[in-house]
């Protein structure tokens, strides 16, 4: 996935001189996760550079460049560290078009790795998507595989509004289904690991059906797509797994059609539960599919605690917990 993201940036920098990439350790070093590796050498230090350690400053710079007419792609080294930039994202980036009557707009992309599974402890593991989806005027995108990662990042860069692009860091170097005892696998063997060299995009607002099924709809994104697929196999439940790909804009049609078909719904995310994005999904499904539901909507999520270092796998909502929810939802006919 790292190479796919790198390729998206490279392709866009090649096509459009207004695209630039910056953030902490992004320039010469190529990013702590190597996503911008080689871009400074190829496109020059003016287009791919290191920034001071100020997340608010990084996003403010992107906003200023964006209103000038550039298409900056800013990196926040870990999603856990995006909060110092929160005011700039919420009160500024998200509202500039609206409050200026369309006079100014902010075509920026803010990339940031999120999620656990790497023993990063409280401050390198969080999934803060819900603090962005709650904000009107921001788009939030989360890929689950290399093909989508490249296509969605290109679509985000081309988008004329601010996009929070969250990268599931546990998937950077291979798929991960939550079975942490298993040998690591690489994207090489995965069908979505094949990434075309050149330009293509995956439009924002279109979910993917990662697995077709008849009995229960699983709604998920990022790392949890792989966990949910594993749970579908392990449970023997014929689950339809929907990979949202973008949370805002949300592909409500795909969700609605699937839940009306299956009559059951399990929502899975790694973020903690209370006021998580699952709460919104649950409300939407209830509002639109109530009379089709055969059992209560289930949520499988991280616990309502910080992400604790030593209890990584007790916190991470793995396939066993998803399996339990799938079986529970099947108990009602």
């Amino acid at each position, binding site marked *: 996935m790292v190479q796919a993201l790198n390729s998206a940036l490279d392709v866009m920098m090649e096509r459009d001189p207004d695209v630039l990439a910056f953030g*902490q350790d992004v320039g010469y070093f190529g990013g702590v996760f190597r996503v911008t590796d080689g871009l400074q050498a190829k496109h020059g230090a003016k287009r791919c550079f290191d920034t*001071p350690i100020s997340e608010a*400053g990084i996003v403010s710079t992107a906003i200023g460049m964006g209103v000038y007419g550039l298409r900056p792609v800013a990196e926040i080294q870990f999603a856990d560290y995006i909060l110092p930039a929160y005011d700039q994202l919420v009160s500024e980036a998200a509202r500039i078009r609206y409050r200026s009557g369309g006079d100014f707009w902010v075509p920026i992309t803010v990339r940031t790795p999120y999620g656990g599974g790497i023993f990063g402890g*409280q401050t390198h593991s969080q999934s803060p998507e819900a603090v962005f989806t709650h904000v009107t005027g921001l788009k939030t995108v989360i890929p689950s595989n290399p093909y989508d990662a490249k296509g969605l990042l290109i679509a985000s860069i081309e988008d004329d509004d601010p996009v929070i692009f969250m990268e599931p860091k546990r998937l950077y170097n291979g798929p991960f289904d939550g079975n942490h005892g298993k040998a690591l696998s690489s994207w090489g063997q995965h069908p979505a690991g094949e990434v075309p060299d050149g330009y293509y995009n995956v439009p924002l607002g279109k979910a993917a059906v990662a697995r077709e099924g008849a009995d229960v709809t699983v709604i998920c994104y990022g790392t949890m797509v792989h966990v949910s697929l594993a749970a579908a196999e392990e449970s023997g439940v014929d689950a339809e797994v929907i990979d949202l790909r973008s949370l805002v804009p949300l592909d409500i049609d795909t969700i609605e059609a699937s839940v009306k078909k299956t009559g059951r719904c399990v929502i899975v995310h790694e973020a903690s539960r209370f006021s998580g994005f699952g709460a919104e999904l649950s409300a939407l499904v209830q509002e639109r599919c109530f009379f089709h539901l055969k059992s209560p909507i289930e949520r499988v999520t991280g616990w309502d*605690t910080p992400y604790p270092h*030593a*209890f990584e796998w007790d916190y991470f909502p793995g396939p066993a917990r998803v399996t339990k929810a799938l079986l529970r939802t099947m108990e009602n006919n």
Partner: protein
Amino acid sequence: MAAKDGGLSLHIPAPKARPGETPDFSHIVIPPAGETPRPAIDTAPAEMRDLAYGLIRVLDDEGTAVGPWALKLEPDVLRRALRAMMLTRVFDNRMFAAHRQGKVTFFIKSTGEEAIGVAQSMVLRKGDMNFPSYRTTSFLMEREYPLLDMFNQNLATADDPLQGRQLPILYSAKAYGFYTLSGNVGSRFHHAVGWAMASAYRGDTKIALACIGDGTTAENEFHTALTFATVYRAPVILTVTNNQWAISSFQGIAGGESTTFAARGVGYGLPALRVDGNDFLAVYAATQWAAERARANLGATVIEMVSYRAEGHSTSDDPTRYRPIDEATHWPLGDPIERLKGHLTKLGEWSDERHEQLYAELTDTITEVYRQADAVGALGVSKPPVGEMFENLFATPDWRLLEQRKELGV
């Protein structure tokens, strides 16, 4: 993009040497030891501005303490400092080895910066509070924080004093005057100002000290801390350790190309000292001066400790990718342990043999205490009870935590 004729161009700072090039520290101006005047603590900040652009040094090249900043420290005090610095280094090396052996998930060394925490610990009194960075380990060493607790946390064993909730190196030790660390850089720097204001509000005599890295001075909290500290004359010492690097970014990316970090203080109307951070005596004297000012109700002081991050940023880092492999050996201010050793030897209070002997003794201690922690069982072999995940979030947990705990069966 080619600049248009007469058009502007964007400046992107770059360090003088990258891998494969010759290290170059010629931009670091080093005045002779003993040359910098030591003003009275109640001097007006405007009359001391030069201190922010110079470099306070006490130890000369021969290891003699010279000039107005040379305090009379007893040899026992100096030996104690040397021991704490050496203990820190031996400890750090043991932890890196443990990481290679897969016993710990992550670690950060403070190699080359050990003088700073030790001097801070000696200057602060019981009841004062240090708001440290993750490179302030030597502070805990000087205060004799239990080594076993440190190892137990870093190895996340069943006896981890932070119950498995925090990463290695991110200690919390209130009883030792050491504020809780967090992975986000900078976020506690301003807390020191609030804490110091509380001490002043209550009419107490406690002072605070805060640590931040050169790179992190870009974060908001650094600037808000200086603003509030100057507005309320908070009894706090605001320390920047300029170790030249912030992961892969040289200090020019943090604004060090055009001025010093100490000079940030000048803009806020605060007295600011720039100090040779590898000279234990200079670090001690400057910190002592700032502490005296704070205790005399004269307010805050900014101190830049000029040092060098002699190793990689952390176990996750490979510095040979972005700086010359031999850059550390070109660093002009030397190594703090070697320099203090040289001084004590010059005084006739230390020798190579005693040094070797102490090193062996500390190595034995560390080996033995590490063995004890490892016997408890590093992460993967043992860990605190999983129920600890739900503890200490609130003073009293609400129904969500109780239900979720039950669901997990812990």
